[in-house]
């Protein structure tokens, strides 16, 4: 066998928590091999083990037949294994070129190389991997998420001589064209690629075989051509899921208006009028950087408006902080896109994370303990199908999907009738997605209103009562439910006249 990487009975335990309990897989030279599994199945741990971030407790790894046991990222790179991490490992205040070359940027050991020369080398690297639109001397923190992701991937490509590990490489990419051409070039050179993604369609497009993980164990390796989506899902979750139903709510124009904006401006938003009725789910679509972020943050009170009005519950409101928004009847609660930085409190338990909403909105101080919090949190947790046994976990130890559920549960806990969600189902597994959709519909059925943005068109089509499309900071179109289709949204998102690209996804 020409396996570039072979993994046998790999296991890893963090303290009392078993993350991997026995993984077997083999990646052939020049193959793109997918790893599939729900959040918490052990994919991230596998990535960490392969890239040298942590060391395994048991099992064996071999690279081109020789034992492979990297003690560090540098170690792994030395042996030709490199990783593009999901959480992006770029240092914010350094230039693109410096980040590309880390950790050994300068050619001289003691005498520093000039920044100009470093940037020149960085630019050469970028050119080599066909990245032409990102200046090598730009500071990373000034780049968009999509640009940063491409830098992350390019850096991994530049080090990958034997194995390239890509963990959710398309999470922020607007299209897969560049990525897939780079992957094909790498495999053409004999590099094995381990590809992790939640998007089955792209997995099918680029990968030949897939290994499915469940609960820290490898269930099996399959050739993707020979198995349908349902089959893969059943391997991932242990049974066959029911077919997805399109059960969007009927719009109810007569219902009470909970929220209105008039010529709302701020950030990239240049003036938007919208109204949100009780019982509807209003989707927001738009290409990256059209002001959707500003719109949701403004309505959620997480950003100060540059002009215009927000009318909540019939009265003009000054939403100067998320707290103010929550306390303005009938209550607005905002769930931001960045879970780690703006969402969770990682060392607090899930219950404490959820119950915090009660303390934030309820004016009176009170005594609490773990039990009280669990009781408080339980109902909201149920509404997002968060298993009660997770309530005692520190949130930092939960999978991304469960973290998202915790955030949504906290939002529900506030009792607000207006939910403002920014890409609520991004990067979560199928099961969690369904729970989130279910919660959203249920919330609207009970008379609440939801304003949500999604980077996935199918999601908008499936959930929205109507959909607002932003272009250049203004409302480009409002698409009613009956006219909702991915093609229609895409056309509007490109400013009416422009021709939609072939790719159906849009990014933040």
């Amino acid at each position: 066998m020409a396996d570039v990487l072979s993994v046998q009975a790999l296991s890893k335990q963090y303290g009392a928590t078993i993350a991997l309990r026995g993984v077997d897989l083999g990646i052939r030279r020049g193959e793109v091999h997918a790893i599939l599994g729900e959040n918490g199945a052990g994919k991230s741990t596998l990535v960490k083990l392969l890239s040298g971030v942590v060391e395994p407790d048991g099992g064996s790894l071999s690279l081109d037949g020789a034992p492979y046991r990297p003690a560090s990222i540098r170690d792994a790179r030395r042996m030709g294994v490199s990783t593009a991490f999901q959480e992006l490992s770029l240092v914010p205040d350094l230039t693109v070129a410096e980040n590309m070359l880390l950790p050994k940027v300068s050619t001289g050991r003691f005498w520093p190389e000039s920044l100009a020369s470093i940037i020149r080398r960085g630019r050469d690297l970028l050119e080599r991997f066909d990245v032409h639109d990102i200046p090598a001397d730009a500071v990373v923190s000034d780049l968009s998420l999509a640009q940063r992701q491409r830098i992350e991937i390019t850096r991994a490509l530049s080090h990958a001589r034997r194995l390239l590990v890509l963990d959710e490489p398309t999470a922020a990419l607007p299209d897969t064209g560049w990525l897939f051409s780079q992957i094909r070039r790498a495999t053409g050179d004999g590099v094995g690629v381990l590809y992790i993604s939640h998007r089955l369609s792209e997995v099918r497009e680029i990968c030949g075989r897939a290994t499915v993980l469940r609960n820290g164990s490898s269930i099996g390796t399959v050739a993707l051509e020979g198995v349908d989506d349902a089959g893969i899902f059943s391997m991932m979750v242990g049974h066959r899921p029911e077919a997805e139903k399109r059960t969007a709510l009927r719009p109810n124009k007569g219902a009470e208006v909970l929220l209105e904006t008039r010529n709302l401006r701020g950030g990239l938003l240049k003036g938007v009028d919208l109204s949100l009725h009780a019982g509807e789910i209003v989707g927001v679509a738009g290409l990256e950087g059209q002001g959707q972020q500003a719109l949701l943050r403004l309505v959620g009170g997480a950003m100060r408006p540059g002009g215009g009005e927000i009318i909540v519950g019939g009265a003009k409101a000054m939403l100067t902080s998320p707290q103010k928004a929550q306390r303005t009847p009938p209550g607005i609660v905002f769930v931001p896109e960045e879970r780690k930085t703006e969402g969770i409190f990682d060392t607090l338990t899930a219950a404490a994370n959820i119950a915090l909403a009660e303390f934030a909105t309820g004016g009176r101080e009170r005594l609490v303990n773990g039990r009280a919090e669990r009781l408080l949190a339980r109902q909201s947790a149920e509404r997002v199908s968060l298993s009660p046994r997770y309530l005692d976990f520190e949130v930092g130890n939960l999978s991304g999907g469960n973290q998202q559920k915790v955030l949504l549960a906290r939002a529900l806990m506030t009792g607000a009738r207006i939910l403002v969600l920014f890409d609520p189902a991004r990067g979560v597994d199928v099961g969690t997605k369904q729970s989130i959709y279910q919660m959203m519909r249920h919330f609207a059925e009970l008379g609440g209103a939801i304003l949500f943005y999604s980077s996935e068109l199918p999601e908008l089509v499936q959930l929205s009562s109507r959909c607002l499309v932003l272009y250049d900071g203004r409302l480009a179109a409002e698409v009613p439910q009956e006219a909702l289709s991915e093609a229609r949204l895409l056309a509007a998102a490109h400013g009416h006249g422009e021709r939609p690209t072939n790719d159906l996804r849009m990014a933040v």
Partner: protein
Amino acid sequence: MTNQLAMSTAPHSRRLPNLKVLAESALLIVLIYAVMAVVYVSVQPSALSPYAIEALLNNSLPLMLAAAGATFVILQGGFDLSVAGIISLVNVVIAVMPVDGPLGALANLGVALSIGIAVGAVNGFLVAGLRIQAIAATLATMIVCQGAALLILGAPGGYVPDFMVYDLTGSVFGVPVALVIILAVIALWSLYRRTDAGRNLLAVGQDRKAAGLSGINVERTEFFSFVWAGAFYALAAYMLAAQTSTGSPSAGEPFLLLSFAAVALGGTAFGGGRGGVTASLFGAATLTLMQKVLFALGVSSFYTGVIQGLIMILAVLFAAAVRYAVRSRRVA
């Protein structure tokens, strides 16, 4: 913290200053220093005499060096209290070394640096190796060093070679030695900042996790930040011995809070990732100059503290205001 909040509410204006702006941040404190110097000189014209300048520089130098050392640790996000212990220890060791002349001074320097580096390495091991919180680990080493200093010299005294006392605090070709040392440190830093090690130091301070995943050896970077710090503290103690011509087992105590105040005044962020040694040097010099300005202005001695405190706050506010202005201009 508030900064983060303000920024997080408006992600599109989230632009941390890049390295160019970082370099400029030293300019701010230089500006504050210059303003203060102008005030001082206008009140006390004799401050411009060569002797007065030399004396001021000599007086400022130990704190400047100590602050420079502390900066290395703070830049990577750590905290180093051992400054007080290392300075006391090195100071008394120099005072009991029976050496003389330029060679003796060199021997003293060698011993001083060895001690500083050794204690710094212990700190580095405790923090980077054993993962003890930096503030706690260095508190313990500070106490141990203070004890050792007391063992070596029970009371102030001892002997410092005349070469250190006179030549190292004097001038060569009309340039004060202290100034030469300061310029050397600035040169060293502006070089170091551009090396991989220096870049890694800032990178670890900015985002420890990302730095680690980028292949930077975070532990190694942390470890050496403490070693650098120890070396600079030792140098501070060395120059302190030269200036005071004796050793004292409690010589380091005043440096504890002052060196951190100097670093903060220089605009280096506690928590890491932003700032630099040059800024800290001027932060320390500003603190020393403040003493002079207050004397020259004849502020009632009981209330000097009020003015001192207010100046510290205002200096930081001024720097923050300028940085804010720069940032909003960049965004606009």
